[in-house]
């Protein structure tokens, strides 16, 4: 019974596909899964938009939207209708083809990332051997889409926003990859299902999630920071900060294309949270062994929604980072710690079981964090301003 609840979506799919002739069944199963993903995550996006507006409101001592529907639950629908019926303005000198293709490419690249996330036991769309690499490849494609959006608008602010966004995304992509590399090292596989299965063991009721190890915790924190920067969320949302750059690379977009950018950003947030949950938080495995009767997909989506809530919380708390501040942060602070983390993970592996490796690894990471932090926190000399005139 519990098993059936756990596998309910797989069984449902088998039942539906069973109505078709045998030769069509595998293709139909894949198409059905794709349709479900494409339908479900935008619905989750609507819910998240509502959660974000209410959550941010409460953090800011105010109510969120509460007029449209009970507690404002129909607000996302109203927003959707608005963006669908707004006039789609394309500037006269804009590059129409690229202007149209940019949001499409963004949304396609982001949707592709969902194909490798294991959303429950046996619930991954494509079980690829190089699943993690596929995910990062799709993430890299979003950068081209962002650049296309900014350039095709023929608007200086858009182009500037796009350049900044691309620079930010490339810098933090390095951090993202390096902080995921530790997980790959310790699991020995790039396949996301194997990574989850490696974390699905319990010792004295506590799980073997990678976040409960020193290198895993450090990796998770760095992954979280890089994920926030990759999806252009606050505090790294300079490319789309309204007070800075009008709206950055989606200035010239209105109506449905703007809604597609918005959708793309939130979907990227979902998939990167899902990946973070898979890599560090044990994917669909339960926190305690006595809770493993709860279906696996519930755990996965709880972790996903918890990450989303933390994203919203950070957005409500932190001020925006300036471009040079965030680039400095990526290259001078996080990247050295990431490389050190890889070394510490290797040390962990080769030191063997027991308490010494905990102490040594934690000590190295903490000392490095404090030392690099102090080096970076040194305030730069605030003397009288020196002017450089053009020659």
């Amino acid at each position, binding site marked *: 019974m519990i098993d059936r609840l756990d596998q309910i979506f797989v069984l449902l799919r088998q039942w539906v596909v069973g109505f078709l002739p045998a030769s069509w069944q595998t293709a139909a199963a894949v198409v059905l899964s794709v349709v479900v993903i494409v339908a479900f995550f935008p619905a989750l996006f609507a819910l998240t938009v509502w959660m974000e507006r209410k959550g941010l409101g409460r953090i800011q001592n105010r109510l969120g939207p509460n007029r449209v529907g009970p507690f404002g639950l129909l607000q996302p629908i109203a927003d959707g209708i608005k963006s669908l019926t707004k006039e789609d303005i394309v500037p006269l000198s804009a*590059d129409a083809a*690229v202007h149209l293709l940019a949001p499409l490419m963004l949304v396609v690249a982001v949707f592709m990332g969902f194909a490798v996330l294991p959303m429950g036991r046996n619930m991954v769309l494509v079980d*690829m*051997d*190089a699943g993690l*690499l*596929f995910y*990062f*490849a*799709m*993430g*890299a*494609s979003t*950068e*081209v889409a962002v*650049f*296309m959006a900014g*350039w095709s608008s023929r608007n200086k602010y858009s*182009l500037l926003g796009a*350049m900044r966004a*691309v620079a930010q995304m*490339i810098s933090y*992509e390095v951090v993202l990859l390096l902080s995921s590399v530790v997980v790959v090292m310790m699991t*020995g*596989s*790039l396949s996301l299902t194997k990574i989850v299965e490696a974390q699905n063991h319990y010792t004295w009721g506590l799980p073997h999630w990678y976040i409960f190890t020193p290198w895993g915790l450090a990796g998770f924190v760095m992954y979280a920071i890089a994920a926030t920067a990759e999806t252009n969320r606050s505090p790294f949302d300079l490319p789309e900060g309204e007070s800075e750059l009008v709206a950055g690379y989606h200035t010239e977009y209105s109506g449905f294309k703007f809604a597609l950018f918005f959708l793309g950003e939130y979907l990227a947030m979902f998939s990167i949270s899902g990946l973070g949950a898979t890599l560090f938080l044990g994917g669909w495995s339960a926190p305690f062994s006595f809770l493993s009767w709860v279906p696996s997909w519930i755990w996965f989506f709880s972790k996903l929604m918890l990450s989303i809530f933390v994203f919203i919380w950070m957005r409500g708390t932190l001020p925006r980072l300036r471009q040079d501040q965030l680039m400095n942060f990526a290259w001078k602070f996080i990247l050295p710690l990431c490389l050190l983390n890889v070394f510490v993970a290797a040390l962990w592996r080769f030191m063997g079981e027991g308490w010494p490796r905990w102490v040594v690894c934690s000590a190295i990471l903490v000392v490095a964090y404090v030392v690099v932090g102090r080096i970076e926190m040194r305030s730069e000399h605030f003397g009288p301003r020196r002017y*450089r005139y053009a020659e």
Partner: protein
Amino acid sequence: MSFVFYLLAALTVAGGLAAVLLKNTVHCALALTVAFAGLAFLYLNLDAQFAGFAQILVYIGAVAILVVFAILLTKGSETPKDGVFSKTWLAGLAVAAGVFAVLGWAVLQTAPMLPKATPAPAVTVGQIGNALVDRYVLPLEIVAVLLTVALIGAVIVALHEKEGTR
């Protein structure tokens, strides 16, 4: 030679042609990105998962961006006034045809020696990794040194620029 192969080949060739023939340089760069994508899908068609995804990650995610940045930060984004074709295009065509002929002859010469239609070996990423640190460790280290040199060189060039404006 399946239908998928022809489709992907057409995509790649179209991307390459567009990269050469289009007037707007940024359009050329985007067409080149399409060619890269076609190449990646060809790798995936041959079941080389790692090569395909690495192609997307590195070429589309980094090299295309680099090309575009280079175009935008120099004067390449203005459309050239006197057309995209150079005056010596006939000589260029002759050289390209010659190279293609040599390559084609080399491939066709070795074709009869290949075994007929064996299933592709499933090369996992683990095997690639093992080979890199086992048999091909010297090329790996040389490439690493090369990348480090490039990185340091970039930093030095940028550093010099900062001091040069003082």
